[in-house]
């Protein structure tokens, strides 16, 4: 999960935040739009997480403007 | 309708008939298919027939009518029937162009619908071996103040931008109209213009028994399965939300590579034929190629690269996955073809061979899963005669526009309302989202002149000359009078070319209409085509290609009948294409004169002003085409001679709106007196100010030049109506005076559209 860093202007999030009240959702705040990247990586959970974090640092995210979070979804069926 | 012979004795299995009907085939058509095959079709064959015999592929309600259009001329290199039309533009170059609709897909999913509309029309152009250099879009939406219209407009424009900008082809112009009848059924027509070396134009006929059929580009998924028959020939209803999964998704990166790859294959003369995969996918592209070449094809669907597992052979045949092309290759050149494809990272897979048996045979590995005679697929679809009937009330089928202006509005108030109205206001909000510069050919950008002007430069051949392009149509006026309204659309397009000094070389059209099986729609369609034929003959412009989009109806009724006309013209000297705007830079010395050229006879019937007042009144006055054509020639010659500083044709909102645009865009005022027009035409003030009609062009230029021009223009109509000067637009007409500051004109014109969208 990759999202704009805290404090960075997020016009996509703002656009969504402005649109929701028009549909009756008045109590929504702090909307941020990020993106979800799904990957299948072989290995045990700890090494996989470390490798995916490395991928985020190098390619998947831009650490200057984006934060990321890696979640292991368990072994592929 | 002329019924085809029905075979009453045929005991078709009930399942087959209901399947066929679900796919849009009539009982009589299914009987004919059985007769042509000599047996019942299997599922794959039924799917293929249903698509090839759909309105979209077979033009079964329009083919006979379209024969009325003139298609020949000395500059025509390729006419209707090829992937796109081509005209000779000199220096060994050809201009290739076509317009096509993507209306139903855009109504269902506006972003992807519009994006893939652009992708599809680009492929039609590079299928002929031409490099796409420009895209123009003609869009129609409902009332601009409804949330649905705002949503569709935002998403359609974003889709065009996303695809066109990423693929790297300039979107240089277009038009947008807002009218209630398009509320549920928006129109998205895209036109593409390309350039090719004349000696490298490619046709789509498959030739050479033993040659290979090679599939290029994206992998095949379940995109748009049934799209052509279900989406493109059924009226829209509530159930459309369920159709979303079958919408095609565009990939402009894939297309960007595919363009470069195909153009290199063409340039190195490695392929014998090229064809895009559009509606009905492989089914239609293979049959069309075989039909044109008079050959047969053996295809192995198991070789087609798939994006999804478990696809059935019939799904592979009719999938509308985007960014795919088909080419015919001699076996000895296959390795060269594959190596160029590898260089562009474009997938290339031989999937079949050309045969001499005139049949389209489909295999799944070793197993034959379909066998159809090619002529049966392409030529034997029954053509239907329309049953036109003029309705007693031409406009009854359409919702009235909402009144936003009183019937007794003062001229100044009317002009303000018009200038900021949805149909007249600046389209900057839209065109700034498009890359109109890529390619380094754009001489006149959107809104700078009446037509887009692109430098004629291709493959190392540089010229002084330019192409001018325009796309036009006004459904409301065609609804008022399909014959005159369509003639006006053709004249408007030609006038836009004249204003930049261009001579029309060829025309492409898209006929957007309702259900042709309804007599009044059949009448609209028939009269519109007759009008187009008359106008093309008068202007001596051949129709080199086009597209028909029928069944454009929502639950509340049909759209306005909307023929869209795209034209390409030739400008001898790119430096001499004037702006639409008045030029204030000579103010202080001797200010420019303003003149109205042409047999302009304005009337309020079907006008924007009447629309703002909540009514559409039929009764467009008939007019003579000859003087209009002559006036356009005079304007063209004046532009080419460098006599005029600006040229802008009178269109929506009449003369007052036209003048206000010249002022708003030029940033300089003008003093205008319309009494000469009032006297000449014996019309009232309101008609002079806001009346519409063909054959009027406002030009400005240095006094001496315009005086010289007046001698030549006298016979087609020339009225000196004012001077370019001052901080405001002042129009006097009899007792009425309008005064609008340059600043306010600019504000009204430029804020009209964004104000409605925020």
């Amino acid at each position: 999960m990759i999202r704009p860093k805290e404090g960075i202007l997020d016009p996509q999030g703002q656009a969504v935040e402005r649109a929701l009240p028009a549909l009756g959702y008045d109590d929504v705040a702090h909307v941020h739009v990020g993106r979800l990247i799904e990957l299948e990586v072989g290995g045990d959970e700890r090494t996989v997480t470390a490798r995916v974090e490395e991928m985020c640092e190098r390619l998947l995210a831009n650490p200057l403007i984006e934060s990321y979070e890696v979640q292991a979804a368990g072994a592929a069926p | 309708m002329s019924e085809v012979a029905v075979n009453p004795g045929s005991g078709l299995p009930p399942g087959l008939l209901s399947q066929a009907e679900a796919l849009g085939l009539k009982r009589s058509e299914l009987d004919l298919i059985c007769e042509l095959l000599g047996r019942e079709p299997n599922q794959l064959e039924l799917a293929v027939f249903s698509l090839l015999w759909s309105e979209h592929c077979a033009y079964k309600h329009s083919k006979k009518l379209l024969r009325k259009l003139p298609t020949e001329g000395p500059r025509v290199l390729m006419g209707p029937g090829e992937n796109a039309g081509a005209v000779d533009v000199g220096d060994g170059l050809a201009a290739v162009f076509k317009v096509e609709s993507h209306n139903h897909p855009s109504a269902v999913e506006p972003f992807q619908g519009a994006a893939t509309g652009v992708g599809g029309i680009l492929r039609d152009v590079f299928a002929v071996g031409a490099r796409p250099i420009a895209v123009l879009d003609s869009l129609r939406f409902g009332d601009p103040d409804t949330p649905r219209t705002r949503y569709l407009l935002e998403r359609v424009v974003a889709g065009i931008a996303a695809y066109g900008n990423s693929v790297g082809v300039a979107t240089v112009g277009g038009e947008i109209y807002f009218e209630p009848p398009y509320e549920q059924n928006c129109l998205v027509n895209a036109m593409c213009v390309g350039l090719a070396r004349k000696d490298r134009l490619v046709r789509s006929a498959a030739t050479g028994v033993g040659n290979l059929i090679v599939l290029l580009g994206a992998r095949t998924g379940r995109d748009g399965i049934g799209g052509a028959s279900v989406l493109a020939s059924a009226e829209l209803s509530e159930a459309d939300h369920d159709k979303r999964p079958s919408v095609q998704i565009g990939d402009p990166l894939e297309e960007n590579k595919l363009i470069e790859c195909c153009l290199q294959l063409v340039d190195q003369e490695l392929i014998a034929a090229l064809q895009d995969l559009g509606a009905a996918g492989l089914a239609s592209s293979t049959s069309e190629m075989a039909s044109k070449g008079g050959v047969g094809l053996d295809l192995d669907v198991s070789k087609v690269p798939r994006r999804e597992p478990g696809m059935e052979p019939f799904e592979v045949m009719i999938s509308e996955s985007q960014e795919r092309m088909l080419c015919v290759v001699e076996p000895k050149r296959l390795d060269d073809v594959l190596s160029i494809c590898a260089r562009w990272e474009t997938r290339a897979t031989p999937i079949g061979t050309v045969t001499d048996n005139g049949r389209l045979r489909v295999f799944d590995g070793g197993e034959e899963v379909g066998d159809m005679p090619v002529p049966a697929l392409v030529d034997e679809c029954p053509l239907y005669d329309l049953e036109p009937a003029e309705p007693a009330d031409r406009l009854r089928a359409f919702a009235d526009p909402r009144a936003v202006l009183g019937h007794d509005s003062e001229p100044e108030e009317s002009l303000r309302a018009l200038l900021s109205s949805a149909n007249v206001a600046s389209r900057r909000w839209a065109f700034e989202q498009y890359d109109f510069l890529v390619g380094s050919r754009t001489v006149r950008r959107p809104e700078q002149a009446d037509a887009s002007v692109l430098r004629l430069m291709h493959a190392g051949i540089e010229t002084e000359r330019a192409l001018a392009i325009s796309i036009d149509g006004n459904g409301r006026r065609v609804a008022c009078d399909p014959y005159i309204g369509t003639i006006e659309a053709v004249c408007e397009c030609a006038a836009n070319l004249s204003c930049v000094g261009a001579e029309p070389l060829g025309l492409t059209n898209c006929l957007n209409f309702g259900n042709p099986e309804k007599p009044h729609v059949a009448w609209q369609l028939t009269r519109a085509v007759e009008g187009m034929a008359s106008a093309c003959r008068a202007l001596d412009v051949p129709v080199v290609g086009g597209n028909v989009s029928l069944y454009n109806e929502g639950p509340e009724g049909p759209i306005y009948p909307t023929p869209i006309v795209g034209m390409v013209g030739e400008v001898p000297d790119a430096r001499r294409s004037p702006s639409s705007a008045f030029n204030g830079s000579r103010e202080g010395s001797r200010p420019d004169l303003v003149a109205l050229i042409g047999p302009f006879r304005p009337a309020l019937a079907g006008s924007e002003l009447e629309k703002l007042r909540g009514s559409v009144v039929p009764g467009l006055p008939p007019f003579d085409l000859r003087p209009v054509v002559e006036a356009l020639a005079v304007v063209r010659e004046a532009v080419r001679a460098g006599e005029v500083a600006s040229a802008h044709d009178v269109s929506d909102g009449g003369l007052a709106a036209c003048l206000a645009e010249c002022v708003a865009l030029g940033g300089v005022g003008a003093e205008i007196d319309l009494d000469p027009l009032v006297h000449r035409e014996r019309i009232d003030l309101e008609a002079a100010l806001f009346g519409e009609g063909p054959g009027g062009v406002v030009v400005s230029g240095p006094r001496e030049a315009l005086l010289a021009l007046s001698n030549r223009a006298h016979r087609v109509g020339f009225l000196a109506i004012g001077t370019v000067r001052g901080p405001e637009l002042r129009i006097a007409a009899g007792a009425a005076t309008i005064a609008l500051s340059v600043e306010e004109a600019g504000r009204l014109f430029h804020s009209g559209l964004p104000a409605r969208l925020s």
Partner: protein
Amino acid sequence: MSARVGVVVFPGACDEEDALIAVNGTPGLEARYLPHGERDLKGADAVILPGGFSYGDYLRAGAIARFAPVMEAVIEFAREGGPVLGICNGFQVLCEAGLLPGALLVNESLKFVCRQVVVAVDSTATPFTSGCEPGEQLSVPVKHTTGRWFAPPKLADQVEAAGQVVLRYAADTNPNGSLRDVAGVANEDGNVFGLMPHAEHAVDELTGSTDGLRLFGSLARHLSAVTA
């Protein structure tokens, strides 16, 4: 003899031909393409990364192009002081590659914007602006969705202090919400320069303006001095 300028072509490039035309239209410069798979620069004296949507920009503008084989050679060339110009997508690639400070974010409007703008030359200490006057105003078009330059406050201050801001949008014409109206920045040595405005689309009166030639002309003069 003309100096050689390599124009890198990534899959999905759009303005590579425009860059080629602009360079070839500049006396003293001669352009040739450098395909993305090349591992050396074929003797180029300067390199241009042109505009477009490399690899579709599907992950993040410039993110994937930065790992193309040719980029190793470009990065090495830049580190050795070779002049490298990134226009639009090329600017995004140079930021992703860490050759330029900051990052480019989606425009505040969230929309693509194609418009003629005026930029002022803030620094003449680069091979691309050395022929310009400080403060000189240039009319050039922008066309992008992801052109809002951003750097965290500390980095932005450093960039300003080091004189690395090369171009700024004229007052009230910032088309994308870019921080401090930045339109183009250089690295500390000034040899790597990225800008959002399309200088290559401002080289002919017929198609708009010729102000872009001020940048290409500067490069030609710089290279003739260096290679003489």
